[in-house]
């Protein structure tokens, strides 16, 4: 009988599958570890993604103009007309960070006083009925809130929301006139908008020197391809003025905020990979123990005529099956856990918390790397074991 090359067939897979669950407790604990690690990796990557969600949802046709010194310094409101006159500018609105507290500080959500006449025309991704928008424009104390925010606090149109001002002292009361949905899942719907005129009128009465000041101008351009030139033209308009400006794309403006917390993002990324490294060591240990216990079996297979490659493939196959099972369950659990977190009070700090397809692919890649690396040494040793040495492991 002439020997053929060994077939990697169903028999081989069956052998691997049976081997995986031979030491049930050890395999189960390793799989649980893998599930937790892959899930933790996915969730941490999603946190990083959520950090960049605002920037990624930015429009390529919009710019933001702020005071060149710092965001905390305002600009005169009359800049608006001069910006509007810059060639390439299609529309201008403005907004002001409010920074109020709803009941208690832990209920944080972003609040902006906006140019109620023009702002929402510039943001078509915020979907609301024309009637609601009109009701907002007609009510000085009116507010527009995102769907996620409304859902979080159980608000509905007509509800009155009291907010304690910090930058603008006092108790402010807003009536919800519209609740907007996002155009798609990348649109952030956790903001609270109200009329800038509302606080400006107050400032005129109480702090006249702070009135008619703007935090940022939101600009829409006619040609996104010329956005850099238009930004330069806007800034040139205010060169050598009392409040020089810095104009940048909406994305760059958002990324500027992310950059301030870059150390945290880097730390999260590092931790996510440390988690993978730890589980790699755990799986490698499992495989080392497994291979050591089965040296006699591997030696027997080699004695029967199976090649060292076949033996190594058994070890690699077992490690990959183990990591695949763990990763599969981990990935499946990541989705509901992320969803649960997004809907929890803790998850509310993120505008968008959704597991991306890239993250799932990274989880799969991690599982593959974990399986391959974990089998590296035991696979090599098992393949190289001398038959006579391996057979001595019996009894």
């Amino acid at each position: 009988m002439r020997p053929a090359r060994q077939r990697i067939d169903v028999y081989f897979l069956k052998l691997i599958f049976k081997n995986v669950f031979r030491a049930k407790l050890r395999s189960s604990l390793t799989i649980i570890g893998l599930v937790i690690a892959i899930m933790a990796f996915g969730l941490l990557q999603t946190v990083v993604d959520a950090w960049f969600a605002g920037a990624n949802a930015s429009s390529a046709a919009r710019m933001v103009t702020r005071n060149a010194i710092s965001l905390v310094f305002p600009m005169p409101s009359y800049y608006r007309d001069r910006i509007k006159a810059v060639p390439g500018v299609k529309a201008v609105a403005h907004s002001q960070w409010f920074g109020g507290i709803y009941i208690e500080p832990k209920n944080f959500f972003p609040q902006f006083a906006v140019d109620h006449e023009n702002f929402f025309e510039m943001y078509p991704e915020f979907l609301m009925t024309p009637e609601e928008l009109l009701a907002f424009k007609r009510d000085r104390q009116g507010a527009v809130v995102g769907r996620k925010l409304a859902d979080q606090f159980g608000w509905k149109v007509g509800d009155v929301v009291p907010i304690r001002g910090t930058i603008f002292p006092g108790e402010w009361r807003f009536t919800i006139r519209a609740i907007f949905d996002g155009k798609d899942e990348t649109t952030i719907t956790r903001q609270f908008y109200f009329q800038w005129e509302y606080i400006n009128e107050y400032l005129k009465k109480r702090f006249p020197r702070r009135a008619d000041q703007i935090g940022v101008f939101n600009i829409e351009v006619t040609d996104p391809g010329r956005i850099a030139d238009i930004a330069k033209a806007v800034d040139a308009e205010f060169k050598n003025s009392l409040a020089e400006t810095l104009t940048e794309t909406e994305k760059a403006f958002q990324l500027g905020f992310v950059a301030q917390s870059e150390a945290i993002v880097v730390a999260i990324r590092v931790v996510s990979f440390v988690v993978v490294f730890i589980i790699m060591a755990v799986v490698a240990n499992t495989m080392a123990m497994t291979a050591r216990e089965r040296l006699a079996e591997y030696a027997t297979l080699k004695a029967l005529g199976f090649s060292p490659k076949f033996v190594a493939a058994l070890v690699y196959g077992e490690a990959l099956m183990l990591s695949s099972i763990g990763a599969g369950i981990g990935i499946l659990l990541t989705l509901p856990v992320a969803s649960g977190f997004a809907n929890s009070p803790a998850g509310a700090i993120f505008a968008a918390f959704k597991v991306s397809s890239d993250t799932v692919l990274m989880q799969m890649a991690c599982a593959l790397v974990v399986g391959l690396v974990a089998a590296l040494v035991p696979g090599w040793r098992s393949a190289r074991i001398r038959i006579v040495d391996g057979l001595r492991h019996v009894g």
Partner: protein
Amino acid sequence: MANTLVEIKHLAKSYTRGGQAVPVLYDITLDIARGDFISLMGPSGSGKSTLLNLIAGIDKPDSGILRIDGEDITKLSEGELADWRASNIGFIFQFYNLMPVLTAFENVELPLLLTNLSKSERRERVEMTLALVGLAERMEHYPNELSGGQQQRVAIARAIVTDPTILVCDEPTGDLDKQSAADVLAMLKQLNEEMGKTIIMVTHDAHAAEAARRLVHLEKGELIGDATSTAAH
């Protein structure tokens, strides 16, 4: 000898332990005829298992000639030797060395995966072989569901399923009770007498050795006796 299957001339083997070469076999010269049943006997450390390993092609000698069926297996590469073993050698170990996660059927089928047989041909052959060793009813049982004697019979089935030239048995009755040992020895005798299998068996047990036609004694790596068994056959 015209009918010589195993031809050994001036075979020597040593192992390295603690940086020093420890001789295990010295100048062994031995011929084994086709269809013979030979017992290698000797105390621990006499080199009998080493000699068996060399004949089985799972170890290589330092010097000397080792021809099996006219082929010098010392010249074969690792890969060639693996193929040669798959075709020519059937192994029976003291502790059976069955795969615990595979059924009796699957264990016996294992060496057939290295052949060109189709699935149905493999099934037919495995069923026939298990029937031959009296385990037709136990095909779907796992090793831990079988007695020691039954496990060794599965191992014998695995060893003969490819119809190898030589059966090498390393203390095949060493882990069995008296009755099971007698059954296994009877089966080996049957394979030798009725199917003409050449069997080389290492054993400590003088009683087991009597099952063989020929007794070869080793001591301290040297051949010290070669006689025809009086009790057997």
